[in-house]
C-alpha cells in the first residue's frame, strides 16, 4: 500500500518547496535560501572558533601539571594559586572579540527579521484583480472543491483535484466542517489552515503548467496521511473546457451495464452519501461523484483511478485507507461490475 503512494508522487510531478512554480513559493524559497546561507556561515564560524579555542588551549596551556596520586591525600591547601593568572591584555582582546561577535549576531538577526517581514508583505501583495475564486472545504479525509458562480446553476463541485489556469491569480477560500486541516501545495505556496467556523483565504498563482501535489498539513485524525490532493495548472483554454464539463451533469448511462450500474448506485447505499448531478443521488456527506471518472486518482490521491483500484476501494475501503468514513459496499459480483461500469462512465 505504501508503494503506490510513492509511485503516485513521482507520477504527479513536483511536490517540492524548493522547486517553486509560482511567485508565492518563489518568495518563500528565496527566504529559505537566504536563511540557509546566513546560518551556514554562522555555523561554520562557530565551529572554527570552537576548534581554534581547543587548539589554543592545548598549545598555550599555563595550568600546572596534575598533582601526583600520592599528593591527593593532602588537603588542597592552595587551590586559588593553581589557577592560571589572567593576562589583562588578552582579556581586553577577548572582550572586544566577544562584543564584536555579539553585535554581528544581533545585526544578522535583525536583517533576517526584516527580510521575514518583507517576505510576508510580498506574499500578501500578489495582485488579486481578475482572480479566480475557488472554495475548498476540507472534511475528514477529503477535499471538497467548489467553483462558485453568480449563477447558481453554473456552480461546479468536485473533489480532491483542483484545476486552475496558468498565469492567473487564484484565491482559495478555505473552510472546514469538522476539525482543523491545512492546505499545502509546496510547489505553489506555504500552508493555509482550514478552521471550522473561521473562513481563511490563500492567494497563489501557477506560472508553469503541471500537476502539483498537495496534502493536508495539520493532523486531522485516522486517515490524515491519506489526505492528499492535486492542483492541475493548465492553459486557460483547457481550463475553461474542463470547467464547462464540470458544470454540466454527466451524460446518462448508455450501455445496459452502465444502466444497471446506475440502478445499483441509486438503490443501494451510494446515494445516501454521494451526489451525481442529474440523478436522485443527492447525498452531501461524501465526495461529489458527478465526474469521478475524469479524476486521475481516488480517495484523496491515495491510489490511481483505475478499475482494479476502484473495485478494491468499493469492496474494502478500510483496507486501503483505514479509518475513513466509507463503508464496504457488499453487492453481488454482477452488480459490482455494473456499478464500476457506471462509475467509469461519469466523465
Amino acid at each position, binding site marked *: 500500500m505504501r508503494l503506490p503512494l510513492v509511485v503516485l508522487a513521482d507520477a504527479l510531478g513536483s511536490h517540492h518547496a524548493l522547486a517553486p512554480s509560482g511567485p508565492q513559493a518563489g518568495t518563500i524559497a528565496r527566504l529559505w535560501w537566504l536563511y540557509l546561507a546566513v546560518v551556514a556561515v554562522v555555523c561554520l564560524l562557530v565551529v572554527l572558533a570552537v576548534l581554534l579555542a581547543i587548539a589554543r588551549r592545548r598549545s598555550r596551556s599555563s595550568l600546572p601539571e596534575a598533582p601526583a596520586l600520592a599528593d591527593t591525600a593532602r588537603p588542597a591547601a592552595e587551590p586559588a594559586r593553581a589557577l592560571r593568572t589572567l593576562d589583562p591584555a588578552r582579556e581586553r582582546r577577548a572582550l572586544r572579540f566577544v562584543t564584536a561577535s555579539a553585535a554581528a549576531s544581533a545585526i544578522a538577526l535583525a536583517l533576517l527579521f526584516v527580510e521575514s517581514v518583507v517576505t510576508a508583505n510580498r506574499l500578501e501583495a500578489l495582485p488579486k484583480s481578475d482572480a479566480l475564486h475557488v472554495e475548498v472545504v476540507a472534511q475528514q479525509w477529503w477535499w471538497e472543491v467548489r467553483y462558485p458562480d453568480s449563477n447558481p446553476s453554473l456552480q461546479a463541485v468536485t473533489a480532491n483535484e483542483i484545476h486552475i489556469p496558468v498565469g492567473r491569480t487564484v484565491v482559495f477560500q478555505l473552510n472546514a466542517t469538522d476539525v482543523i486541516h491545512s492546505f499545502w501545495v509546496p510547489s505553489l505556496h506555504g500552508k493555509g489552515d482550514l478552521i471550522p467556523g473561521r473562513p481563511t483565504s490563500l492567494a497563489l498563482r501557477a506560472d508553469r503548467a503541471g500537476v502539483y501535489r498537495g496534502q493536508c498539513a495539520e493532523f486531522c485524525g*485516522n486517515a490524515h496521511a491519506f489526505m492528499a490532493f492535486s492542483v492541475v495548472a493548465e492553459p486557460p483554454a483547457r481550463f475553461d473546457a474542463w470547467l464547462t464539463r464540470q458544470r454540466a451533469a454527466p451524460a446518462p448511462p448508455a450501455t445496459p451495464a452502465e444502466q444497471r450500474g446506475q440502478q*445499483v448506485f441509486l438503490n*443501494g*447505499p451510494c446515494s*445516501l452519501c454521494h451526489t451525481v448531478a442529474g440523478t436522485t443521488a443527492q447525498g452531501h456527506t461524501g465526495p461529489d461523484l458527478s465526474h469521478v471518472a475524469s479524476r486521475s486518482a481516488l480517495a484523496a490521491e491515495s491510489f490511481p483511478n483505475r478499475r482494479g483500484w476502484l473495485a478494491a476501494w468499493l469492496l474494502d475501503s478500510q483496507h486501503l485507507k483505514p*479509518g475513513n468514513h466509507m463503508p464496504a*459496499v*457488499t453487492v453481488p459480483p454482477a452488480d459490482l461490475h455494473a456499478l464500476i461500469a457506471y462509475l467509469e462512465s461519469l466523465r
Partner: protein
Amino acid sequence: MDPRASQLLLLSLAAIVAGACTREERRFSDLAVWSQPASLPPIGQALSPDAVGAAQPLSRPLAHSPYDGNAYAVNEGKRLFTWFNCTGCHAQGGGGEGPALIDRTWRYGSEPGAVFTSIVAGRPKGMPAFAGKIPEQQVWQLVAYVRALGGIVRLDVQPGRSDSLSVRPPEVMLKHRNPPSPSLEKPR
C-alpha cells in the same frame, strides 16, 4: 515499595488495561458484523417493510449488540445519526416528528435486535426502512448509539462531548437509566 503493594498495583493495572481493550479498539474493517450479500434485498426489489422483514433473517441473535462496549463504534453511531438525518425527525434525541430517544419509553423494546429492526425494516407511523441503504456495520453502530442515548450502554462508553453546538448535555451526563424490559407508549 513493598512487594505486596507493587503486586497489587501491577494486578490492578493489568485489570484496567484488559478491561479497556474492548472499549478502545477500533474495528474499521469489521467483517464479522457484516451479513452475507444474500441477506440484502436484491437491487431493484421493492423495499416495503413487510417484504424486508419477512425475507431477512437477522444476522445476529436478538440479545447481542456487537458494539455496546466499544466507545469508537458508539461515537461513529453519533456521527451517522447526524449524517443520515436521523436528527431530522428525532432531533438530538429529544424527538419532534419522531419519538424522543433519550427518555425511558421504548415503543418496540430496547433490545439490540428490536432497534436494528426499527432501522432496517422501518416502523409504522413514519420510520423509514433503511435496508440496503445503510450498510449493516453502520446500522449496528447506530443501534449502539441509540441505546447509548437511552442510557443502556455502559457509562464509560458514552460519548463525552458533542462535536457541534450542544443543545443538551452530552450523552455521558444524561441522567437516566432505562429498565431493560420494554414498555409500550400509550397509543395516541
